[in-house]
């Protein structure tokens, strides 16, 4: 090996000097063949404690009541939490449910997922198709659309809150057009609309990138053949591009659904915690509120809701994996 030259090399040497002796002692003890288990140990221990153990706990807690933290102090309540969440005169009317906030959150989330998935997919697809053309400054535009993806949800929530403020730029612009100012985030309809707008603004660059990678994998000679046949652009789009992009579109669709169901961060900051009223209270916020906000500490109910949401996400993920395999083959 080359002699240590730069600072990174020296840092590597230092760690080597510190850890080599004890790790080599272990190697002599257990033998070379068992070393991979040692290398995997930190990772598996962390996954065990912070991923697999919580799943077991979530399922256990979902069947207990009370506000105590220790499972041994918690009374077993059987299916009570699930019964409470799922008891409704009509599932279409949250007010008729025993746990009406849960159903309000579910309906809010469903509406959000519907609009957000449709809008993001459409915007990302159009942008990817345009960026796939031979157009000047393509790299610049691709980077521009991608920039919001890197920002923090809190920052995005605050930037948009200011943009939509009573004294904000949007109202100033509307006033120029003679439209009276509106407090967008205190209006049920407008606030829901802008939660979708902000979500599309935030995430579309990510999906554009995935769709663009799919578009660039379509063989060029197909387009050349279409050009020879003098196919119209719309015919090329619907007969070549979209069918060949189909599997990628499905993967993006499912990924988008999985992420949209979990909407929380930016919506929470933008709407001051789900407002106005409960117009923008989504399912993750419901779980958060039941378990952590205020003095409720209803860990059992929150766990039961988590388990239900986890099942929905699991089904979506399994569908995605199946589709992903099809894309690869």
């Amino acid at each position, binding site marked *: 090996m080359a002699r240590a030259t730069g600072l990174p090399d020296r840092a590597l040497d230092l760690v080597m000097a510190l850890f*080599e002796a004890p790790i080599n002692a272990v190697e002599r003890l257990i033998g070379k063949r068992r070393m991979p288990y040692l290398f995997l140990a930190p990772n598996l221990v962390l996954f065990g404690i912070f991923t697999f153990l919580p799943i077991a706990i*979530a399922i256990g807690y979902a069947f207990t009541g009370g506000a105590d933290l220790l499972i041994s102090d918690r009374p077993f309540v059987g299916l009570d939490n699930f019964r409470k969440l799922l008891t409704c005169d009509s599932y279409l009317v949250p007010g008729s449910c025993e746990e009406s906030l849960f159903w309000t959150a579910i309906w809010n989330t469903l509406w959000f997922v519907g609009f957000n998935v449709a809008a993001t997919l459409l915007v990302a697809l159009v942008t990817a198709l345009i960026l796939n053309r031979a157009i000047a400054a393509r790299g610049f*535009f691709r980077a521009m659309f991608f920039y919001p993806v890197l920002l*923090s949800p809190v920052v995005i929530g605050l930037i948009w809150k200011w943009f939509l403020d009573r004294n904000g730029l949007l109202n100033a612009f509307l006033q120029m057009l003679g439209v009276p100012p509106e407090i967008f985030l205190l209006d049920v309809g407008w606030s829901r609309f802008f939660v979708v707008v902000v979500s599309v603004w935030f995430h579309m660059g990510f999906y554009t990138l995935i769709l663009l990678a799919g578009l660039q994998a379509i063989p060029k000679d197909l387009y050349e053949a279409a050009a020879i046949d003098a196919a119209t652009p719309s015919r090329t789009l619907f007969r070549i591009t979209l069918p060949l992009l189909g599997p990628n579109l499905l993967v993006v669709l499912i990924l988008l659904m999985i992420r949209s169901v979990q909407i929380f961060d930016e919506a929470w900051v933008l709407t001051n915690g789900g407002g106005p009223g409960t117009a923008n209270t989504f399912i993750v916020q419901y779980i958060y509120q039941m378990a952590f906000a205020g003095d409720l500490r209803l*860990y059992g109910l929150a766990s039961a809701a988590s388990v239900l949401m986890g099942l929905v996400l699991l089904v979506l993920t399994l569908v995605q994996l199946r589709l992903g395999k099809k894309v690869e083959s």
Partner: protein
Amino acid sequence: MSANVSAIGFFTRTRRAGRIDITDILSWLWLIGGTLAVLVPVLWAGMSSLKPEAEITRFPPTLLPRTAVQVEVSGFDKPLSLWTVTVDGETREVAMVRRIGLKAQMVDPANPGKPVSVDTRSISPVQRLTVATENYTDPLTRFSFLTFLKNSVFVTFVATLLTLIVNALAAFALSKYRFRGDKAIFVLIISTLMIPLTVVMVPAYLVIVGVGLVDNLWGVIIPTVASPTGVFLLRQYMLTIPDELIEAARVDAASEFRIFWRIVLPLTAPALAVLAIFSVLWRWNDFLWPLIVLSSRENFTLQIGLNAFQGEFSVQWHYILAMTFLSLIPVTLVFLFLQRYITTGIAGTGMK
């Protein structure tokens, strides 16, 4: 064949270059519109963060940060605001004493003895371009902004370092050894991708309570260190490193750890760089998990601090926007210099 293809390419190119299609114009409109949609809210927040408190909520807003100019006039206790007045075709700058209905009493700062009464419709305030640097300096000294910043830097740095080491070790074991259960362990690790934080946040918090890391920065760091994305990314890269290198080192009696640390790890540098960038972004922007774990102000990260601050001082937009903009800077720098790595990383794994 290849001559044929290039001939077609040449043919289509000349045909395209000859005229500008309607779809070209629509494409440009879409791209420019999109760029504006991305930039305008961000730049608007940036411009607003330079405005003084009194100016920031003025409606309709001005584009540039400006303040009304005030002057000291002898005989008056308080400084008076300066206005431009046009009297008899002559424009003068005078100070306003008081305003009664449509009339305003003005004095000439140079000659304060004789107040004159003028029509308020004929006057306009004198404004100067001012940058409210106090929006940025106040939070640094008066509020806990520096503490938030320090906590965020600590969490980001330590978590990224641990993420790289722990996942590289696991990826090394899964790519360069054959052992009992290797496939099962790989599937097990990848399967954790299916368990998002939102599903396990309640019980994960209970685990954090159990190990005594509530309201502790380590409680934010440790649960996120093992990353299925990280293992997957590094393993795929390590599979391309030739096994002969490792065999040769074994012949030279190198220990397994030395092979990892001195041969495999340096060769994995490009993949490690991609994971490091992702990790920095994850930690810097992380919100829900720190929100659950951290409860006292001195432990807040930047994002939690910003959120708490906007809840407490909801009208102090001049401070909120300045701090928002400060927290935007590192991410924007990452974006400007490392954008290429990030886009390749996403295209390669389909994850973020």
